[in-house]
C-alpha cells in the first residue's frame, strides 16, 4: 500500500502519524489519510478540493504540478509526502 506522510509544519496543527493507506490514486490516498485526522483536510486542500497554493505534494520525491488534478495513479510502495511550501519571506 502507498504511504502518506505530512510534514511537521502540518502536524503541529493537527496530529497525524505517517500511515499506509489502501489507494489507487493520489486523491484516494489523501482522502483515506484524512480519515485518521479529518481536521487536517482543510489545511491541505481548499473547499474545491485543490491543494492549497502554499502546500506542496510529492509522490516519490516528485512534486505534483497541477493542484486540482489529483487523479494520479499510485502503485503499492509509493510514498506521498505533503509539506509546507516555502513561499514568501
Amino acid at each position, binding site marked *: 500500500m502507498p504511504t502518506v506522510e505530512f510534514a511537521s509544519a502540518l502536524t503541529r496543527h493537527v496530529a497525524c502519524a505517517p500511515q499506509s493507506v489502501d489507494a489507487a490514486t493520489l486523491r484516494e490516498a489523501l482522502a483515506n489519510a484524512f480519515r485518521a485526522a479529518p481536521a487536517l483536510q*482543510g489545511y491541505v486542500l481548499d*473547499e*474545491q*478540493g485543490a491543494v*492549497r497554493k502554499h*502546500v506542496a505534494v510529492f509522490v516519490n520525491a516528485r512534486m505534483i504540478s497541477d493542484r486540482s488534478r489529483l487523479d494520479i495513479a499510485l502503485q503499492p510502495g509509493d510514498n506521498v509526502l505533503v509539506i*509546507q511550501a516555502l513561499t514568501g519571506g
Partner: protein
Amino acid sequence: MAASAQAQAIWVGTRKGLFVVRRNASGWTLGAPHFPGEPVTQLAFDPSSGACYAALRLGHFGVKLWKSADGVGTWQQVSAPAFPPKPVEGEWKDDATPWTVDMVWALEAGPGTLWAGCLPAGLFKSADGGASWQLVDSLWLRPERKEWLGGGYDHPGIHSILVDPRNGNHLTVAVSCGGVWQTRDAGTTWTNTSNGMVADFMPPERREDPNIQDVHRVAQCAADPDVLWAQHHGGLYRSDDGALNWLRLAAPAISEFGFAVAAHPTDPARAWFVPAHSDAERVGGRASRRDPGP
C-alpha cells in the same frame, strides 16, 4: 479590534497574534498573545452566549475559526466559512472569482446567528455557534456581483457587517468595491443602498453607479442605528436614514482618503476616522468628526 464587554480590555488582532490590552490601576498592560505568530483577521463577541470567536488567516493553510465558549481564551477550533463546490454548468461555471475563502474580513454576532463576510465577497451565516456555515446565496448569486471589483485585493470582499440592534433580521453589509447592501429579512432579499456615493476615479458615466462604490468601512451608532458613517475610497460619508441616502462630508485637514471609521456608541453626531495623506501616500493621522455642526 474589539472592546471586551466583560472587562476594560481592548483585543487587537494582528498579523502576529491576538493581543489583549487590559486596564488596571497602573494603566494599560499588554498581555501575551493568543495564537502567537498567526494572522488574526477578525474577532467577535457574542453577548447572548458569552462566546468569543477569532478568525485566522494562516499563510499556508487557509482560513480557520476558533471559538472560546467562556470568552476568556480557552480556544477550540470550529468550522470556518467555506464555499460550496463551484458549479460546473450554468450561469456561474465561468465565474472569474474563486470559490475559496481567502480571509474572514468581517465577523459579527446577531441574535442567534453569527455572520461572516469574506474575501472573496461571500456572506456566510451560522446558526449553531460556528459548528456549520451556510453561504448566503441570495447575495452571492446576484447578477450584480459580476460587476464588483477588487479594491486593494485581487477580488472584491465584504469588510463590514452591521446587525441592527433593533432587529436582527436587518443587516447592512459593505463591499469593496460593490457598495452598501441591506437586507430586512435575514438575507432572503437584498437592496443596494449607496445613493449619494460618488466614485471619483471611475469613468464619468459610472461614478454614481451604486454597484461599484468602493466603501472601505461602514460603522453604525449603536444608540441611533439609523446613523451610519462610511469611509469611502473617495471621501467621508454619513447617513441619517439607515443608509438609504449618503451625504459626503467636507474633507478633513489631512485628506478624505482612509480606511478606518468608528462610530460613537451613544452620540450619533460623532465618529472617528483615520485619514491618510492621500491614496498614493497612505500615511497620516486621525480625525474626530462631529456632524452636524461642531
